[in-house]
């Protein structure tokens, strides 16, 4: 998948425009896990909802292309897009309860997807659904098939969500904070499961999270988002060892670790500005410890430091 120049704006009542996603480029290759990280309000979720074209009024995708296997999703009709959403792209959310239908059994919900998108008959769908439930780690899959979402724990619900998401063997799986609502021992199980499924099905995985630990552990490549824009992109190891953007570095310093002894945590002063009133110039300038005159004048471009590392900051634009 290839996203280019994506812009998603919200047109607010008072004539204000919230530029929630502003010029985002993003590529995820088959078999790769790309993490999109940022604090709340940075535009991570709106980016993924834009890819799925689940943006509602007053929001609108105002520019860009989203190509998946060569076709631009933004040119598709609603009907075609519905097909893509089931078949080629699937999404897992933070709170599986909101995505699962409480009045249908788990098995019913998986079968439904299979019958609709894979044109299976009832019997085939049931057999495949049970296979899928086994695959995501339900030992008594036949029983689970007939259970309702509320009968499952949070971790089990997320497994069920994964079973639904992979039922049509999508090319791209978007996971938006898939483990944020789960305990750490369960989180480890779920992320391992997603990775295993990614490898089995050779999917591209876009992992959206605020948790840098999860990123360090599981991503191949990382994009850091701030104020609706990508401010740094690098392979995981390089990002954690040689982060360049002051925001990325600030985030890392403010994170306590179980392996380190820090007297005092680093902080980033202030808070994320709302999407309708970013500062003029660099969007991080209101919080940046290195801000210079030009930072308040204009917003830096995302520049390529080398073939795999880019950063949006004036500290790196001079030769």
């Amino acid at each position, binding site marked *: 998948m290839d996203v280019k120049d994506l812009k998603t704006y919200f047109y607010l009542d008072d004539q204000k425009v919230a530029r929630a996603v502003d010029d985002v480029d993003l590529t995820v290759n088959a078999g790769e896990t790309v993490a999109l990280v940022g604090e709340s309000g940075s535009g991570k979720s709106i980016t993924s909802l834009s890819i799925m074209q689940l943006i509602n009024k007053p929001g609108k995708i105002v520019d860009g292309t989203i190509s998946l296997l060569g076709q631009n999703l933004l040119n598709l009709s609603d009907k075609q897009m519905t097909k893509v959403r089931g078949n080629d792209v699937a999404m897992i959310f933070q709170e599986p309860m909101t995505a699962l239908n409480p009045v249908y059994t788990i098995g019913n919900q998986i079968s439904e997807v299979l019958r609709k998108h894979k044109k299976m008959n009832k019997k085939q769908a049931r057999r495949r659904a049970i296979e899928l439930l086994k695959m995501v780690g339900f030992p008594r899959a036949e029983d689970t098939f007939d259970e309702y979402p509320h009968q499952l724990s949070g971790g089990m619900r997320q497994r069920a969500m994964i079973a639904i998401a992979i039922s049509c063997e999508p090319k791209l799986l978007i996971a938006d904070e898939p483990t944020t609502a789960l305990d*750490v021992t*369960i989180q480890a199980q779920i992320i391992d499961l997603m990775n295993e499924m990614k490898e089995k099905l050779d999917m591209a995985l876009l992992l959206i999270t605020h948790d*840098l630990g999860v990123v*360090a552990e599981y991503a191949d490549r990382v994009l850091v988002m701030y104020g609706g824009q990508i401010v740094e992109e690098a392979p995981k190891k390089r990002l*954690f060892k040689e982060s360049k953007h002051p925001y990325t570095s600030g*985030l890392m310093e403010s994170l306590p670790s179980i392996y380190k002894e820090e007297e005092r945590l680093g902080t980033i002063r202030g808070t994320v500005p709302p999407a309708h009133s970013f500062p003029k110039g660099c969007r991080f300038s209101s919080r940046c410890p290195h801000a210079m005159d030009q930072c308040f004048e204009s917003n830096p471009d995302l520049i390529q430091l080398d073939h795999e590392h880019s950063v949006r900051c004036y500290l790196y634009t001079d030769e």
Partner: protein
Amino acid sequence: MATVEEKKMTQTEQESIVKVENLKKYFPIKGGILKRTIGHVKAVDGVTFDIKQGETLGIVGESGSGKSTLGRVILKLLDSTEGNIFFEDQDITKLNNKKMRPIRRDMQIVFQDPFASLNTKMSIEQLIEEPLLIQTDLSKDERKEKVNSLLKVVGLRPSDRLKYPHEFSGGQRQRISIARALAINPKFVIADEAVSALDVSIQAQVLNLMADLQEEFGLTYLFISHDLSVVKHISDRVGVMYLGRLVEIAPKKAIYEEPLHPYTQALLSSIPDTDVDREREVIKLEGDLPSPSNPPSGCAFRTRCPMAHERCAVERPELIHKGDGHYVACHLYDDEA
């Protein structure tokens, strides 16, 4: 001025400010047409520990392990089912509301979601003034002065006085809750997931603030959180809960560097770390947390424990002292046969 080392020394010799003994809190489960009690959720099931003057005791555990119930029972916001609670050597377990009033001044709590816990119709000034009105005889001017100084202490501007909670960000609202909790100079503060809803950069600001305030006012904290990294950062000692029971408690260094309990070991190994060079060996736990209404017999962890053996199903392990303030409840350690 005492150095940090000296301070830690005196701390270990210091008196405990809070002590709980075999504390239990069972919630009845009602069922049937007659709404009879058909069982109990054993949210806190026989917990014993003490908190020393001026220290921070961290309590970690997964959701449903009973951390918040423990905090509420200690503050007597909930009645205990069994056991005793001591505050400054006084048994407060059975005290009625009237007798509790002077003691309540000394104990405060800060919750996870500052929005839910702040009355949105009150201005910041009214919010911080409220505990002063109820608990002290300060004059109007004195109260105003106190509000201003509290705002300053938590890093807000005096001009923020007249604003309302919705005009603040999550981190700022958490500062307001802290100002409110500190208004009547408590000795003991329980922070229940107080930074969990905040973004990391903001979380760091609030954690630093809490550390500064502890230093300045000699506060004692019970810091409840599911986040083991945050707890490590702020605590002197750490207790680990599983299904209503304390399975291990020890000085911070011992818990994080030499955890004894299989659950603590698994929990620590599951935390993803940002050190990309570290080769981590995750101890995978099978299955989910069992229901606290029907915990496994013997050791409650045995259904997920990689080290479980016969004895674990029949006998409940008690906390035993392994030296240097390190306590663990597990049969691997209770008889060195």
